[in-house]
């Protein structure tokens, strides 16, 4: 059998995967609990537009993705307020705009389809040194900020009215959460693929919620699960010659389904 760690690109792949898997649940938990899971999809489709844009004008596609994702989440936040209880409309509108933009921008790319493709489905094994550093920096930022604001994020996720009554700046914290979501989605789209990032945001958290008995343990276990999914996904995809992103997501889905059915029997 081939030694997986004999390959430089696999070592890089493992480092990025471990970091992304630590960062995504930190964002995924509050998003899922605020019933806002769909934001991952809306943002990732806008991120694709940013990737196409980056490839077109010759800046790093991940940076393009970060810029477009941030614009997307801020638009969602602005639009949400207009629709009151039907705020999910905003998510769908922004997602549609993102898809439209990606379609048009990628039309201008000469041999762009191959490149866009690698972002749709992820290409963890071909990341450059610059992208590795970017991933390390941005993932560390996400983990650091969500831990720093741990009690504030819990409070606004559980009950925004009480949170604002007790003086927590809910607007600012929500905006920070949204921007971190954008960053996470943009960075992770390179690794697991834009079409699959929202599952990495949601599945570890969803699985963890089935087996945890507190907010804290839900968070810790969702990070642990995300690590298990990505690391085992990398191993399996390497030896079976599968696409890593898809393998990671399918392992997660399988574990979620199994956990849910075991829980149900009890």
């Amino acid at each position, binding site marked *: 059998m081939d030694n997986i760690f004999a390959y430089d690109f696999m070592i890089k792949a493992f480092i990025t995967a471990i970091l992304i898997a630590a960062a995504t649940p930190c964002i995924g938990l509050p998003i899922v609990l605020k019933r806002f899971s769909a934001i991952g999809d809306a943002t990732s489709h806008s991120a694709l537009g940013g990737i196409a844009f980056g490839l077109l004008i010759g800046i790093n596609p991940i940076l393009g993705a970060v810029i477009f994702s941030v614009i997307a989440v801020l638009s969602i936040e602005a639009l949400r307020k207009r629709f009151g209880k039907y705020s999910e409309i905003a998510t769908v509108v922004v997602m549609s705009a993102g898809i439209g933009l990606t379609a048009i921008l990628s039309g201008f790319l000469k041999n762009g389809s191959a490149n866009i493709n690698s972002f749709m489905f992820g290409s963890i094994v071909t990341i450059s040194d610059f992208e590795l550093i970017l991933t390390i920096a941005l993932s560390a930022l996400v983990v650091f900020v969500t831990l720093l604001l741990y*009690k504030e994020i819990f409070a606004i996720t559980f009950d925004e009215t*009480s949170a604002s009554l007790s003086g927590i700046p809910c607007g600012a914290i929500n905006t920070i959460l949204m921007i971190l979501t954008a960053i996470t989605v943009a960075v992770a789209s390179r690794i697991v693929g834009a079409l699959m990032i929202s599952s990495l945001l949601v599945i570890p958290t969803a699985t963890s919620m089935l087996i945890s*008995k507190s907010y804290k343990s839900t968070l810790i276990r969702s990070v642990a699960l995300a690590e298990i999914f990505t690391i085992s996904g990398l191993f399996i995809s390497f030896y079976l010659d599968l696409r890593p992103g898809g393998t990671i997501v399918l392992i997660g889905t399988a574990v979620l389904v199994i956990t849910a059915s075991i829980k149900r029997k009890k």
Partner: protein
Amino acid sequence: MNNEVIRVEDLNFNYPDTAVLRDVNFNLMKGDFLGIIGANGAGKSTLIKLILGLLPYETGKITILGGELQDVRAKIGYVSQKANSFNTDFPATVREVVIANLFPRKGLFKRFNKADEKKVDEVLDLVGMSEYKNKLIGSLSGGQQQRVFIARALVSDPELLLMDEPTVGIDAASVADIMDIICRLNKNGMTIIMTNHDTPTLLNAANKLLIFCEHGYEEFVSTSDLSLERITDILAGKRVHKHG
């Protein structure tokens, strides 16, 4: 220094097509217990939300502890009507829900410490929920959840406690327990504003009363010679002269 905790002056509030509050005036001193009585839709919750700043008032003035609301936030506790209408599948323990309300004492970024944990134990003990500390909030009964939300309001040692029908859905024996706890806090100087459809219970605990009725409201600055019959009359729309 005076001991005035809250002063409401000429307060008016309307929803787009419903006039709710007209020229409401009252003030409370430290240690007062104000009961608010009135039919469904009379404007009790609206008044409480105005005091908390959850709704913006059009005209009038509310002064709390001598200052503006944002400066005294940390000194106000609140138990909302149907506090237990949160998402019951939320993965949080009783302890996590209660400690979250210590935010005003901590400020941004600071972590909770031993003293904070002790404070949580103390208030959970007060409402008789200690043994449920590490249970998921969604796994408790409605009345137990309500006790937890009362503990949450108490954890930051508020000087003014606003409670909107805090004993709805709680069994009679527990209502007595909880009113006991609240009255004890009141005797120790906590100012209380409470709405409650259980008029006898409220009349028993409160020393001041606002009764919302057909033509506006009646204020009683003492409840000592107020009878249940009289309150029923006022609620039914029979005019009485202002008291006290």
